Structure formats: C-alpha cells, structure tokens
C-alpha cells in the first residue's frame, strides 16, 4: 500500500506518471512529494511508487 494524501492506495509498482494518469489530476498542475522529498518533474516516468511510501500530491487550482 502507498499512502497518498493520507489515504492507502493499492498503487505500489506504478510510476508517478502512471499513477497520475489513473486519477483526475492534471500533471501540469501538480507538485509531488514522496517520503518528504520533492519528485523532480523530469523523473515522474522513472520514479516507481513502493510499498510503504508516503506521497503528497499538491494539485493547484486557479485564482490569486
């Protein structure tokens, strides 16, 4: 299980790109943190989510 924004998800083994594609998140509007570290945008394709990871997806909305 991977804890994403506080909820357990059965997504271990997926890359960040694959996970985002399986959700409603727009990859151009997010910042992704994994185990307390920013995941570089250029590494979304190669970063595989592992069992026990804690992930935070910050998805920005419009207005300011």
């Amino acid at each position, binding site marked *: 299980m991977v804890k994403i924004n506080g909820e357990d998800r059965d997504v271990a083994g997926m890359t960040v790109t694959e996970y985002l594609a399986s959700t409603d998140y727009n990859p*151009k509007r*997010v*910042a992704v943190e994994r185990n307390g570290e*920013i995941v*570089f945008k250029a590494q979304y394709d190669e970063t595989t989510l592992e069992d026990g990871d804690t992930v*935070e997806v910050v998805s*920005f*909305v*419009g207005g*300011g």
Partner: protein
Amino acid sequence: MLTQEEWMGALNARHGKERQEKFSRAVVAVCGLGGLGSNVAIALARAGIGKLILIDFDRVDVTNLNRQQYKASQLGMNKTEALAQNLREINPFIRLETHAVRISEENAQELLQEADVVCEAFDVPEAKAMLVNFVLENMPEKYLVAGSGMAGFGSPNTIQTRRITGRFYLCGDTVSDVNDGIGLVCARVMVCAAHEAHTILRLLANEIE
C-alpha cells in the same frame, strides 16, 4: 515628515526589536501581483520587511479593482510600478526591486536568487505548479509559501496554512477553483493573502517549525 527613526521605533515597539531586525534584514520575492501578491506585499511592507522583489508582467485592469490593491487612477500602469508607488506611500523606507516580466524556468533562478522567501501568488494553476516545482527542485534552500484555493463566497474558515514538506508551505482551502465559475472576492482572497504574509513573517522570525 516621517523619519526612519520614528518608523523603526514604531515597528520595534510592536514587533519586538529582535524580531524586527530579522524582518529588516529580509528579502522576499512576491511572484504575481494580483489579489494575493498585492495584498501580501502590503502586509510585508507594513511589517518593515527590508526588501521586496516584485514580479508581474501585467498591467492594472478594471477587473482587478474588486480585490487587488490598486486604484482607479492607476489603470493601465504596470502592476510593478503601481504597487511600488502604493508601497512607498505606506513605507517610504522599503527597498523595492521590480521586474515587469513573466517568470519562467529560464529566468526564475536569476530573479529569485537574492530572496530568503519566495511567495507564489500567481492565478493560473500551471504557473503555480511551474514555480513551486522550480523552486523545490533548484533552490531547496529557499522558504517557499504558495496559495491555492481562495475563490468564491465559501467560509473563510476553510482557508488554512499547511507545511507540505521541508521549507514549502501551502495556504488556501486547496479546492475552490476560479475556473469552476466562482469569482474571486476581495475579503476571502485577503484571508489567503494574510495567511501567506503571516507565514512568511513567522518563518523569518524562526517562529514556525
């Protein structure tokens, strides 16, 4: 005529001398001078922040006046220039650096280099994400305070500040999207701007984890 001594005396009396010295030494970059950024900049100027780097490519438009800290007399001016004028009327001693440009991955490093804190105050979500990712990836030593979710007439109490990771803090309700057809209302935007500004002050004073 207000002297710098009188101004500093008034700030020291309210904030405490030690804290005020940290504010006076600080450099904050405000990225985007709309409803968030213009209000953040005013709060920081009043707090006696030493220097602000003001960045926005846009000009003052009539649709800004409902929530942004500009005046009808400033329509058509560069926001950088108009805000600098307003800030100097409030605090004649603040140091200001203005850049009427669009921030990109190409120029961000240079624009933000001197800042202790980067304040993300854009309106377009892709731009917000670009800046946040850029700073987290390339300038991890900076404090970063961003805003997301402040549109509409919802309760102001849902707007919060959360530490996401390391030196990155996010203010807002995270969901109220102006693109859902709900407008931006001055008071609620100001609540979010106040969260950003106050978080910046607490970070500069080392009063936050």
